[in-house]
């Protein structure tokens, strides 16, 4: 604000005029400012009036916008979850009804006709269930995972097919919190089988081209990027290796060697199948991280104490990816590509030929395109391939095609190590304790009995059969099938009768092992057992299909088993209902919280932005008084003149 100095010796006419003009200008500006503040209701009209407040106000407006968006996101999640929640209530009601029917029909009082009629009802319930599974919300399928535009459940050949995705959709509830808003149908309806699990580990060897992103570090975590610090004690001294942009393991080795060469250090890095090793050329070498990095430990090379012997990096684990070369799989052992394998799913069957496969994706694509309703993908931990049965109500079996392909890939549904307890969907094998379970009749008319006591796996059963055959001196040999799955019994007696497995002591073991009621007569000398360890979907639709079939087939144990499954599934649905409920609640709570936060932000914003009217009016009043005083005094003073007194 302009101020005229008061310590001046004389006052001229011009000075007085300037002073009055200046005072008027200042007062009028103050008035205008107060006026504009009051009329706009803001404590500052342009940011430069108060840059600090303006910055704060921008920050707050920005935060407010975001909070409102996050609240909208929570609202979206809430809506989607609520739709799923109501669908789940419907599913639960259907399940209760189906369970009730199962428990009513399992009794011996129900007639075949009644069961037939109830089967119709169960069938319609199953269709209702599929309708719920295909329910839409705002034009998006609720239970298709992220595949929201594809009808998740379709009536396919041999069963209800789940075509949806298995992933979750997320919405952001804060800068660093994303929450799932859906439960995929695969989980809710159990519409995909459990993957076929074996002990096979397909972890590939490291190659130059293995990407660092596809490697689990020596410390069990992803390998971060960073800089290695080498110290060749007594030699080249300290040099660093910048690995901030390396892409592959080969790049790492190259970068170390290049940096060593540049520093004049006698250090050589090389890549083995499982890690990186560093060879000092004489002088001892230490390897550490730069400041807070973790790449040295990630690569398994952390060597704080200088070492003059070879530094063998700790093992790195490469993950299987779709682009992993087939020959690198299983620690470089590769797999039997030539033979292929056989997939049987319900009535569908296909022989998978992967002779041409060069990468994992070739195998996966071949399986997925076989048209047998299976889904193959690399497992979460990147150690192998998972194969799922997509169809509800069918059994999936994968067996060899006279080779070891399926075994190598870890997707054979049954082998000699399969525990008996897991057979027949976990029902196991009937075994009469202390009594013989099988009677094997050879073609030459001889027979022998087998006691399965103590057998835990299919291999044990084969051994017991062979031991019993030897003991009984019957030239019969059991082995595991090389094509398909199952126990294979070969008759070497040269007889002309029929080879068959009879049930001894009413034991169900023969059926449970898949050996009864097959026979090998005429010229055939081999009896081929069934695959009794297939995979099926354990979900609601499968259970209802089984119940319907059992009711139609008047199969009391089947009705009981399906009923039990339905009871188990009710708990599963309740669990998922709980998850969805909890998520919906989180969403609601979060929304509430965000809306509260937005309110608080608004209050802050108004504190920062809004005008204190009392203060502003006081200021306006002050400015008005000043202006009035200026006008009055200046008129008064300028009217005084000596000239008026002259005559």
């Amino acid at each position, binding site marked *: *604000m*302009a*101020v005229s*100095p008061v310590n*001046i*010796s*004389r*006052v*001229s*006419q*011009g*000075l007085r005029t*300037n002073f009055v003009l*200046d005072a008027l200008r200042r007062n009028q500006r103050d008035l205008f400012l107060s006026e504009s503040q009051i009329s706009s209701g803001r404590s500052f009209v*342009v*940011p*430069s*009036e108060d*840059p600090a407040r*303006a*910055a704060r106000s*921008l920050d707050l*407006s*920005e935060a407010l*916008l*975001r909070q409102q968006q*996050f609240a*909208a*996101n929570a609202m*979206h999640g809430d809506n989607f979850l609520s739709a799923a929640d109501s669908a789940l209530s419907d599913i639960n009601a259907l399940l209760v009804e189906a369970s009730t029917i199962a428990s009513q029909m399992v009794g011996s009082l129900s007639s075949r006709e009644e069961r037939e009629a109830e089967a119709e009802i169960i069938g319609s319930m199953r269709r209702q269930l599929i309708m719920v599974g295909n329910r839409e919300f*705002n034009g*998006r399928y609720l239970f*298709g*995972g*992220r*595949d*929201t*535009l594809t009808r998740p459940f379709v009536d396919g050949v041999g069963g209800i097919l789940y075509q949806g*995705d298995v992933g979750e959709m*997320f*919405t*952001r509830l804060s*800068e660093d919190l994303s929450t799932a808003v859906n439960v995929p149908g695969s989980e809710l309806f159990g519409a995909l089988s459990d993957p076929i699990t074996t002990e096979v580990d397909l972890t590939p060897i490291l190659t130059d081209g293995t990407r660092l*992103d596809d490697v689990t570090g020596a410390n069990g975590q992803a390998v971060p990027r960073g800089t290695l610090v080498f110290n060749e004690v007594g030699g080249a001294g300290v040099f660093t290796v910048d690995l901030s*942009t390396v*892409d592959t393991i080969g*790049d790492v080795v190259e970068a170390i060697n290049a940096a060593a060469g540049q520093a004049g250090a006698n250090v050589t890095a090389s890549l083995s199948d499982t890690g990186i090793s560093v060879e000092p050329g004489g002088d001892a070498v230490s390897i550490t991280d730069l400041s807070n990095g973790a790449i040295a430990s990630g690569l398994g090379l952390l060597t704080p104490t200088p070492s003059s012997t070879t530094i063998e990096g700790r093992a790195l684990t490469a993950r299987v*990816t*779709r*682009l992993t070369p087939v020959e690198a799989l299983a620690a470089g052992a590769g797999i039997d590509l030539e033979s292929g394998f056989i997939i049987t799913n319900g009535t569908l069957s296909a022989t998978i030929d992967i002779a041409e496969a060069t990468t994992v*994706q070739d195998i*996966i*694509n071949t399986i*997925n*395109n076989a048209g047998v309703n299976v889904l193959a993908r*690399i497992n979460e931990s990147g150690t192998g391939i998972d194969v799922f049965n997509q169809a509800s109500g069918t059994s999936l079996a994968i067996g060899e095609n006279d080779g070891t392909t399926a075994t190598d890939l870890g997707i054979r549904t049954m082998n000699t190590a399969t525990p008996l307890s897991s057979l027949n969907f976990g029902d196991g094998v009937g075994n009469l304790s202390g009594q013989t379970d099988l009677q094997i009749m050879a073609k030459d008319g001889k027979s022998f009995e087998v006691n399965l006591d103590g057998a835990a796996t299919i291999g044990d059963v084969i051994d017991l059969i062979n031991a019993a055959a030897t003991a009984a001196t019957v030239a019969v040999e059991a082995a595991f099938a090389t094509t398909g799955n199952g126990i294979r019994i070969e008759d070497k007696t040269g007889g002309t009768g029929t080879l068959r497995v009879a049930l001894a002591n009413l034991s169900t073991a023969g059926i449970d092992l898949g050996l009864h009621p097959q026979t090998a007569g005429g010229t055939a000398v081999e009896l081929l057992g069934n695959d009794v360890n297939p995979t099926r979907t354990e979900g609601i639709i499968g259970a209802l299909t089984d119940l319907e079939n059992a009711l139609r087939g008047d199969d009391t144990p089947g009705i009981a088993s399906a009923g039990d499954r339905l009871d188990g599934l009710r708990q599963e649905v309740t669990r998922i209902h709980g998850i969805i409920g909890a998520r919906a609640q989180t969403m609601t709570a979060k929304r509430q919280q965000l809306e509260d936060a937005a309110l608080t932000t608004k209050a802050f914003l108004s504190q920062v932005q809004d005008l204190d009217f009392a203060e502003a009016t006081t200021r306006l009043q002050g400015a008005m008084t000043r202006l009035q005083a200026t006008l009055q005094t200046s008129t008064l003073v300028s009217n005084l*003149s*000596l*000239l008026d007194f*002259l005559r």
Partner: protein
Amino acid sequence: MGLMNSSLQIGRSAILSYQSALQTIGNNISSAGSPDYTRLTPQLDPLQGELIGRDLQPGAGVALTDIHRVIDEALEGRVRLAIGQQEGAAARQSALAQVESFYDDLSGAGLGSRLSEFWLLFDELQNTPEDPAIRDLVIGGGRQLAESFHTLRGQLGALGEDLDGQIEQLVNNADDLARQIAELNGEISTAEAGRRSQATSLRDQRDALIRKLSELMDVTVKEQPNGAVNVYVGSEALVQGADSRGLLAVHSIEGEFGRTSVRFEDTKQQVMLGGGKIAGLMQARDEDAYARIAGIDELAAAVIADLNHVHADGQGLSPFTEVTGEFDVLNAAAALDSAAAGLQTTVTSGGFYVTVLDTATQTPVAYRIEVTLDGTPPSTATDPSTGSTTLDSLVSAFNEQVEGVTASVTSDNRIAFAADTGYSFVFGFDGQAPRADSSGILAALGVNVFFSGTNAANIGVAETIANDPSLIAAASVLLPGDGVNAGRMASLATERSKTLEQGSLTELFQAASNATAVSAAGANADADASSSILSALQAQKESISGVNLDEEAVAMLKFQRAFQGSARFLTVVDELLGELVSLIR
């Protein structure tokens, strides 16, 4: 005889002197309203008379010996300096007030709001990526954001051009003023030659002109013995005696914008200005307009690069059947990270995934295309396996590996991909999992990107997605409900910018906007301070050189009375003379 002659002479001198003194007072009073006027004071000196008797000297009356201008030349110099500073500060103040209004987002219609709101659209896109309406909104938001960038940049550019235009006008004014001062110098030295008194009104006129000139530039003045003044700008003389060197506005184009510079007309040497309106305008033009354009361009480039980087790793609702890169390279045979290739964003060694889908079965077949940029000589199209990757070698490596999609280099050195019949393709996905482009080459070449353009002037929504919003890459695993990549794009609002690294993109704009407010507040304070200084100095100047009517009235009374007394004295002398004459009869 002494009595008669000398007394009449005394009376006469007084009558004449006071008449002139009153004239001066009259002039003062009449000029009281003129701001350029310097008050005059008459100097009255006694006249030495003849001796009376032996050694008595009664004096011979009074004479008006000088009329001098009451002026403090040193103060005048300070006033001129203050005028220059005040004018410079005012010029910046008014320029910054405009700049501030361009940036002002308190009304919620500026670039800042657009930028904040733009990222929020990606949250909506993540929520319902299948919704075509939301995709349209995202495109609309992108367009509006681009438009806001264009507008702000245009406003700043226009302001700069406008300020530059003013400079030219003002330089012409300054040239005129210098010429007039030189002319007046000539007139003053002629008028004052051989005389004791000053050519007051001419000097007042000249002082007014110098003050006007000092509004435009920081001038210093040195008076010469002949009454002329030399006017200096910095250490260079602009006016010497009756000659002006002349000033010239020279318009040159630097980059995209014009910049006018001030030169001496005779030597064409640049005039170094330290203050005044012209310097203020130049500073406002360079620092407040053009420099901010550079900042806005940088921000726009970061928005383009950061968003494109994430976008290039995602997939739309449907795969591509063909796509052409938005950005060209200067030389398709140069290593992609070299200046010869001229890509705007950083590219490193690494690789990207392209997944070819069989249209009939949707079977995905993934390929990884390597990019090697290790400082080795560029590889060739015929042997892409060794050396640094070039656009040509990238295309041949792609075509060597990938089946179902053909890459090519367009006539304007952009990359183009086209699927064979029965195939389509996506990036950033290997058929099961998301796979980021670790080389950054897709974003750098503008393949599968959101924005085209390189700065605030040419930023725009990439034509590919503008034509088909379903190609906005919201997904990370090519599923319609998958909005993971949209979520990543939304988080760019608060994540540290990968390109600019000092903060998030919204923060960076806010920082720029705050800096503007702070500058404007600073300019306001500067303008206030310099105008305070000026008015204080002007008050001092007025207090010395200004006319006070009461003073003048008192002086007038004094001279009137002295005149009246002298007239009376003449009457007395006349009477005495009469007495003497009557003695003769």
